[in-house]
């Protein structure tokens, strides 16, 4: 049997000053680590849960994003009559030609301006996106300069409340409703009538076309047909696939998380190592005594590594607690974070959520810090010559 854990635990408590510093250091590192992961995940889940797998989004060949795409009226007319497209109960083709514009609006609280996406959408387009539901006010009326904004944007931009205005090009749009996109990318958009949008911005073309094929075979057929039709110059892909590719915006967070994670864990490892070296130095005679009593070198190593891990794990628990508390607070207050989409330069809004698996990951991370940080001090303790150790004060 090895040395009892309570021995380590009490030593940790007795040396509470150094313990506290290490615990707080590790806690900070683990909290940042968990939060960065939660942010990356928040962005991914926003893009990931957008769209309907049955829908196909059509953009110009060579365009990566809707906002940089142009679909001419001729192109749309050709596309519109594809007989693979489903029809609704009124016999209309379920296809929506839309205009996506970037507008700039003042942030609430005077924090400058930021870009946001304004989508000119048709009745079919709204049917194709049942995720988006009106929660306040009413929908815009065709032929009116009216706009409905997402609840997230409403909290973020000045004038984005019912009765407020949104400046679009030379015109002002009246906000008549608030919608909820249920965590999808549409939560970062404002919607208005497509024809009205084209007239305000004086655009002949559309940006993209969203359509519903009759079935999955028809979907494949449309994608293939567009790909092979070089003259038409359009590209189609599943709507969900399109949005999951937009997940690229999480990459900077992942990279930042990686770099920060490595740099900070090196710091945390050194903090843990320092504490454990001090602990070993202060307990040299104790180690000698334990060895005399018959405890092996490996049980001394284990004991000190346990102790280092215990300290780091306490830090991990505190750090995860902090991250969790922040996450709960942010959810409760409905605070959103914006990240710039590098293609449209519009903000994507998201929340982070610290899930149980992220907490688990954070705890594992802290255990790793503890194990690595205490390895060398533990080895030093185990290699102390017994008699010399006994003579130390």
């Amino acid at each position, binding site marked *: *049997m090895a040395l*009892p854990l*309570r021995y380590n635990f009490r030593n940790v408590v007795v040396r509470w000053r150094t313990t506290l510093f290490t615990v707080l250091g590790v806690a900070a590192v683990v909290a940042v680590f968990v939060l960065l992961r939660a942010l990356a995940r928040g962005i991914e889940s926003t893009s990931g849960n957008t769209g309907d797998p049955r829908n196909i989004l059509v953009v110009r060949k060579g365009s990566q994003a809707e906002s940089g795409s142009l679909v001419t009226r001729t192109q749309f007319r050709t596309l519109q009559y594809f007989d693979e497209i489903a029809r609704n109960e009124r016999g209309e083709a379920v296809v929506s030609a839309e205009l996506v514009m970037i507008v700039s609006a003042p942030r609430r609280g005077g924090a400058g301006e930021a870009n946001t996406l304004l989508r000119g959408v048709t009745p079919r387009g709204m049917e194709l996106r049942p995720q988006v539901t009106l929660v306040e006010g009413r929908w815009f009326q065709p032929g009116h300069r009216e706009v409905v904004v997402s609840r997230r944007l409403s909290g973020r931009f000045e004038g984005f409340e019912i009765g407020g205005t949104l400046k679009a090009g030379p015109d002002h749009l009246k906000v008549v409703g608030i919608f909820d996109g249920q965590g999808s990318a549409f939560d970062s958009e404002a919607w208005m009538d497509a024809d009205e949008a084209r007239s305000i911005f004086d655009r002949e073309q559309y940006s993209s076309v969203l359509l519903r094929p009759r079935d999955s075979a028809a979907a494949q057929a449309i994608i293939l047909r567009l790909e092979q039709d070089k003259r038409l110059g359009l590209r189609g892909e599943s709507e969900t696939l399109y949005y999951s590719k937009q997940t690229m915006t999480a990459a900077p967070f992942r990279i930042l998380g990686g770099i920060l994670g490595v740099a900070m864990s090196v710091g945390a490892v050194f903090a843990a190592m320092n504490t454990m070296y001090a602990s070993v130095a202060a307990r040299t005679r104790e180690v000698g005594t334990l060895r005399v*009593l018959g405890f092996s070198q490996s049980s001394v190593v284990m004991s000190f590594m346990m102790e280092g891990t215990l300290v780091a794990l306490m830090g991990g628990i505190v750090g995860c607690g902090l991250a969790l508390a922040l996450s709960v607070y942010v959810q409760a207050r409905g605070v959103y974070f914006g990240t710039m989409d590098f293609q449209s330069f519009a903000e994507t809004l998201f929340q982070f959520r610290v899930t149980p698996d992220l907490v688990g990951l954070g705890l594992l991370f802290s255990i790793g810090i503890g194990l690595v940080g205490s390895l060398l001090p533990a080895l030093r303790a185990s290699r102390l010559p*017994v008699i010399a150790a*006994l003579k130390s004060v």
Partner: protein
Amino acid sequence: MEAPIVVIRDLSKIYRQGEVQVTALNRVSLQISAGEFVVLMGPSGSGKSTLLHIIAGIDRASSGEVRVQGINVANLDESQLADWRNQNVGFVFQSFNLIPVLTAHENVELPLLLTALGRRERRQQVDLALNLVGLGDRGHHRPDQMSGGQQQRVAIARALVTDPALIVADEPTGNLDARSAHDVLGILQSLSRDAGKTVLMVTHDPKAAVFGTRELHLEKGELARDLVQE
């Protein structure tokens, strides 16, 4: 006479520090019988601690042979030696060497954690040992809540809890007042006389020597005198 429990032949210990050689023990030969209470005396630097450490298996000889209960300890590797110490030798140090964060009970229990004993048996053994040194009611106290004499008695309980044949003590009364020293010596004496343990004790105190059954004097690493007391 009982069969010898410790047999030492031509034992030497030489420390080398660069060019300088220190002969801590010089060809010491000696036998100790089971149940003896041997008091080891001699001037500072005469090699008393060194001899004690080698017999107890925490140091190794430079040459010569040491057998304890017929076992040549030089043939054991580090981990075998650790097990051997745990089962056969109890240690008492001048400065008690209790683990400060553990209670008296937990300190005494430490050597038993390396045995196959279950929790209940360990508890019984620890209570027995603490009662033997008169501290049955102090089990839950930490070392800093006890006097030096009490701490040393806890250390003796820890030394005898595994029921080892040999108990070694290096100046166990060196840090104690006269009264506590007397108690400690009395306990060691009864361990040898009543429990049949072999006790090997280093001391500078001639008054402590009278508790033993035999007095060994070391001088400059050599055995100078060997007196068996009446």
